[in-house]
């Protein structure tokens, strides 16, 4: 009896080991496939002009120079950077301040008119009138050529709101109820009990908002007139594509500079990722306290 159980456990652990090894191999493979193009971007951005002329796919560095980066950083990069940081920073904070409580409230089944709210909100998932009606609205609000035109219309995303709402629905109601018994109102219950438990999803959504503010391009061109208010994405793209004007007046922009532009465009967001990532798993510990 005893021995049979032990043998079972050993067989189990062998199968598990095999699975684990396969798993590691598979994930490594996925990572390699994902990383190869990124590696190419990085290596190309660090290459000298002569090594990237005429389209080559670099995976092994032939030269190492930061000239392309210097070129991009000296082209007024910081102005675009600050504009983007302001928009993405303020926008993300506002977005979270609105999304979190709303998601929480909509997750409460007793909420008055909850059904109506959800239906009205869900409708905005599928209907989109496009940029021109929004332009007209922004114009009526007097926000054309104002940085707030890139914040206000995007400080809520139905997508993210529903993700947050559904996560909050998975939190057992007993937690909120016990907070009520302790004399908390809904707001305090949200802040003290629910937010700490929802940290993983809230940090993920924060990141989604930040990236969406950071990478927004079309609206930034349409709503902003003065080029000194352009965001980083607009500025960087203008830098690359000016050379592409069909008339060919611009200088040639070699691949290394283009790639440096790509790296510098995403680097600021990438750098905040590790800070956010720490919170993706904190829910684990809280999960242990449950019930």
């Amino acid at each position, binding site marked *: 009896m005893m021995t049979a159980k032990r043998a079972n456990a050993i067989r189990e652990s062998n199968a598990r080991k095999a699975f684990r090894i396969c798993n590691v191999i598979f994930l490594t493979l996925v*990572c390699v496939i994902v990383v190869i193009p990124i590696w190419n971007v990085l290596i190309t951005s660090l290459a000298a002009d002569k090594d990237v002329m005429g389209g080559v796919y670099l995976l092994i560095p032939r030269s190492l120079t930061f000239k392309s980066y210097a070129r991009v950083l000296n082209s007024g990069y910081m102005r675009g950077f600050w504009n983007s940081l302001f928009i993405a920073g303020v926008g993300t904070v506002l977005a979270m301040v*609105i999304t979190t409580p709303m998601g929480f409230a909509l997750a409460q089944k007793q909420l008055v008119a909850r059904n109506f709210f959800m239906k009205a909100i869900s409708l905005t998932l599928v209907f989109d009138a*496009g940029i*021109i009606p929004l332009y007209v*609205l922004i114009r009526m609000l007097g926000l054309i050529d104002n940085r707030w035109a890139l914040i206000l219309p995007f400080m809520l995303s139905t997508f993210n709101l529903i993700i947050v709402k*559904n*996560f909050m629905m998975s939190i057992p109601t007993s937690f909120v109820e016990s907070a009520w018994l302790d004399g908390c109102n809904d707001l305090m219950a949200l802040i003290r009990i629910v937010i700490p438990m929802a940290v993983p999803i809230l940090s993920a959504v924060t990141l989604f908002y930040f990236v969406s503010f950071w990478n927004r391009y079309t609206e930034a061109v349409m709503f902003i007139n003065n080029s000194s208010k352009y965001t980083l994405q607009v500025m960087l793209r203008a830098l690359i594509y000016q050379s592409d004007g069909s008339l060919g007046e611009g200088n040639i922009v070699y691949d290394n500079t283009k790639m440096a532009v*790509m790296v510098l465009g995403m680097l600021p967001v990438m750098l905040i990722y590790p800070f956010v990532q720490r919170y993706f798993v904190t829910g684990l510990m809280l999960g242990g306290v449950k019930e």
Partner: protein
Amino acid sequence: MKNSGQMAHVIHHPAGSLRRRLWKQRWLLLMVLPGILWFILFKYATYAGLALSFTNYGFRKTVSFVGLRNFERLFRSASFLNAFRNTLLISLYNIVFYFPFPILIALLINELRSLRARRTVQFLIYIPYFFSWVVVGTVFVNLLSPSSGIVNQILRSLGMESIYFMSDVRWFRKVLILSYIWKQMGYGAVIYVATLSTVDPQLYEAAEIDGCGRFRQVLYITLPTIKPTIITMLLLNLSHVLMIFDQVMVMYNASVYSVSDVLQTFSYREGILTGNLGFGMAVSLFVGIVSLLLVLGTNWISKHFLDDSIL
């Protein structure tokens, strides 16, 4: 008077109690308020624009009501029908091939023992999400170039012919799907990983003691926990698949219009770029209605399989 009394009797909520309920929920309502105002201003107000689909707005200086003419034109145009077919096909491929991928990855990441390995994998697959579509377009054109791209180098070293993926009608949709997976895989995985973190470790321990293997633990504990998230994500994906635009816009070219032109690119070229806004709005309205049907269908299904509907 009699009527309202009857009503109150039926639903057990006299007017006074509604007021009391509102007062009791004042905090909750306050939390919803800013968002509701935002939806009214920035979403519903812009929907007035959709009404332009019944006019010739933009096409001529004096706006006039044209009834269903824009829609008539839509359904007669071979390009529109082609775009609609492509949109549905690309959406279908996205759902079939892209959608399960982040779930699988998240589950596999969850099986990794070392926290550092988990974080590294998550970080690496998340990087492409930071790129905008323009960048992804450039990256894939380089990657798949027949002369210099690494994919064709590998094909050639295996003794195969190189393939011009970006201009090949048989390959282009596959390129769209693969690049979509490449860019969005990390995004989806993050949501599932976050949800997986809510699973109570004690449940696993209990299952272990009961002699449940890892696979069965996943089947009976993990999957049920993330099931609502899976359905939510499916629904959210469905609501947006028809709006695919940026990706196609930066990656397609004239030679693959027949397999890649989608509703939004069609409406951009023939509505916005020619100033024919009424026509563009007709496409938007059409997209909205079809998406609505898709979402309602899924929601109906989810209602039957889950206790609560997602929306």
